[in-house]
């Protein structure tokens, strides 16, 4: 029973991914008859024939000369080989290489934000749940309502203004030498940490509150469960109940959510990377957008979507395999 569910779930994920791939292929082709026009938009000072020649060359170079269906199958074949396509940049670098160069820098930000947010957030959340209805809890609620109305990029600007420009505690813009001169030395790592401080700080605030709110709700939900009542009735010590019964059980949804959250984190990080000029996937995506580099944009999108699908699948399976209370059926 469980294994048929696992197989069904895996197949469904593959189905969703196939649709996402198809969307990825067709979105850049909305509104133009010829994808070469996306690569090289018509320009005023060019005669009809010149433009036709340029388009012809482009079609050959990027494989747009075959039928759309064949382009689609070629795209799929490329994906199976791990080839996300060729960028429209000069020199036609492979999309996967461009992403690979930026991915670690993005992960530096998102993973540290996640770790700090998780640790601090869980602590605050547990505190708020334990002191339910008292000032600690109310403070968390008020902080949540205020924080949710303040966009992260505004916080980033304020931090950059005060900590970066006025008080000069951290660099307000990312040092361009950070990436090019990077080596595994203490000096280099320290510089990365300094440059990453403000971007991480501006995301951590929201992350902490979000995790705290989630933890608080999870802990309160578990506290109301019957097995906690049973433990109380058995006369177990308060601390044993709190740590062994309540905390352990309320951590499950939070821990399994980590994988899922990282993709959303990277998506939302675009704006923060822009503020600090951080050399990550977010700025890569915006660069691609500004130069109409569709293969690169769609490659990043595909990577993020694929990661989310994978994370949701793993979460679901972990739930089913680990938690006996989860009944197999429709998740919604």
């Amino acid at each position, binding site marked *: 029973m469980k294994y048929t569910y696992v197989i069904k779930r895996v197949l469904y994920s593959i189905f*969703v991914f196939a*649709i*996402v791939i198809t*969307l990825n292929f067709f*979105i*850049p082709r*909305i*509104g133009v008859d010829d994808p070469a026009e996306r690569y090289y938009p018509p320009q005023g000072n060019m005669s009809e024939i010149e433009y036709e020649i340029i388009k012809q060359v482009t079609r050959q170079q990027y494989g747009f000369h075959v039928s759309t269906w064949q382009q689609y199958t070629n795209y799929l074949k490329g994906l199976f080989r791990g080839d996300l396509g060729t960028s429209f940049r000069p020199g036609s670098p492979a999309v996967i290489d461009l992403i690979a160069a930026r991915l670690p820098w993005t992960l530096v930000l998102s993973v540290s934000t996640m770790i700090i*947010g998780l640790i601090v957030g869980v602590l605050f959340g547990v505190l708020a749940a334990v002191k339910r209805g008292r000032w600690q809890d109310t403070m968390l*609620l008020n902080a*949540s*309502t205020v924080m*949710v*109305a*303040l*966009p*992260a*990029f*505004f916080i980033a600007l*304020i931090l*950059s*203004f005060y900590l*970066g*420009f006025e008080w000069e505690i951290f660099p*307000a813009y990312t040092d361009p030498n950070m990436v090019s001169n990077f080596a595994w030395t203490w000096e280099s790592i320290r510089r990365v940490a300094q440059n990453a401080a403000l971007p991480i700080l501006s995301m951590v605030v*929201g*992350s902490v509150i*979000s*995790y705290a*709110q*989630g933890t*608080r*709700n*999870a802990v309160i939900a578990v506290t109301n469960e019957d097995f906690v009542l049973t433990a109380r009735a058995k006369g177990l010590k308060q601390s044993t109940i709190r740590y062994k019964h309540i905390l352990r059980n309320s951590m499950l*949804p939070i821990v399994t*959510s980590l994988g*899922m*959250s990282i*993709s*959303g*984190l*990277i*998506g*939302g990080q*675009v*704006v923060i990377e*822009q503020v600090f000029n951080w050399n990550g996937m977010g700025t890569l*995506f*915006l660069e691609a*957008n500004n130069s*109409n580099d569709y293969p690169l*944009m769609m490659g990043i*999108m595909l990577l*993020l*979507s694929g990661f*989310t*699908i994978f994370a*949701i699948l793993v979460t679901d399976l972990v739930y089913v395999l680990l938690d006996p209370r989860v009944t197999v059926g429709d*998740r*919604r």
Partner: protein
Amino acid sequence: MKKLKNIGSLLKRIWGHKQGKVGLVMVSFLILVAVFAPIIAPYDPYDVTQRAAKGLPPSSKHLLGTTINSGQDIFSMLVYGTRVSLLVGVTSGVCIAVVGSILGVMAGYLGGFVDSLIMRIVDIMLVIPTLPLVIVLTNVLGRDFWIIILIFVALGWTGLARTIRSLVLVLKNSNYVKAAELAGASRWHIMIRHILPGTSHLLIMSTALSSAGIMVAEAGLSFLGLGDPTAISWGKMLADAQSGGALLFGAWWWIFAPGLGIFLAVFSFMRLGIVMEEIVNPRMKQTSSVYKLFRSLDSSYIEDVFSSMDEYSQIGAKGLQGGETHEASVKA
């Protein structure tokens, strides 16, 4: 007529709520500012020729100072910015409510093929990172004001449709729907006359909350320089402040003013939404709607984490609400 009376009584109840009063006053204030912007604004916000008035700090002549590079009056820009924010936010919020309710009711009541089609679309849209997708779509479709609203609606209906669907699944089994079915009413008649009114409170509430979410998203989009290029919006003001050297030259007023605008608008709509949720659904805790808002925002950190838990509590509470509004005993 009956519906108007319902909305009137809802407004009266919000007015009776301490925090609801604050939200209502703030929202009406913002609407007044947006409508009478040309009368309120002391200067022309588009006037970039005031060379003598560059970079002035706040004074009685320029309430919030002027910009460094072109000497525009920031207070006037702030007032005009209200128009874009409210128009995009509220229009998208209303359209999301319409689309989300139609699709949610169809999925819940018709079931079968329609249900699985709509829910599969929701699944697919869940895994594609929102902000990057919005950026790609503005690139493909253009950055016109209405296109941006269209994109927000096209991507924003999923969460609401899911919630409405789970509510409809409860309402579907209630006695008055059964009675209508036995009386031979057509399925469309039942959906429009009997089921849709049962979700109306949820829709009003969700309009306020999603308007708030869209306002943050719109600010982020125009901060990235991807909003409507001809309009003055708060996000664009922040982007101009960053590129115009507000951070470097210590022009704090240029950063705080648009940030304050965004905060006030989002906060007041959110307040209103949360209070409505509390009034409509007294069993629901404030925190859970705050948490939901976190998820509906673009830079949400935990995407779908506690959804199962959240929705479970909602179904229970909403079953009760359906019973209240229709004076029929609803049992799931």
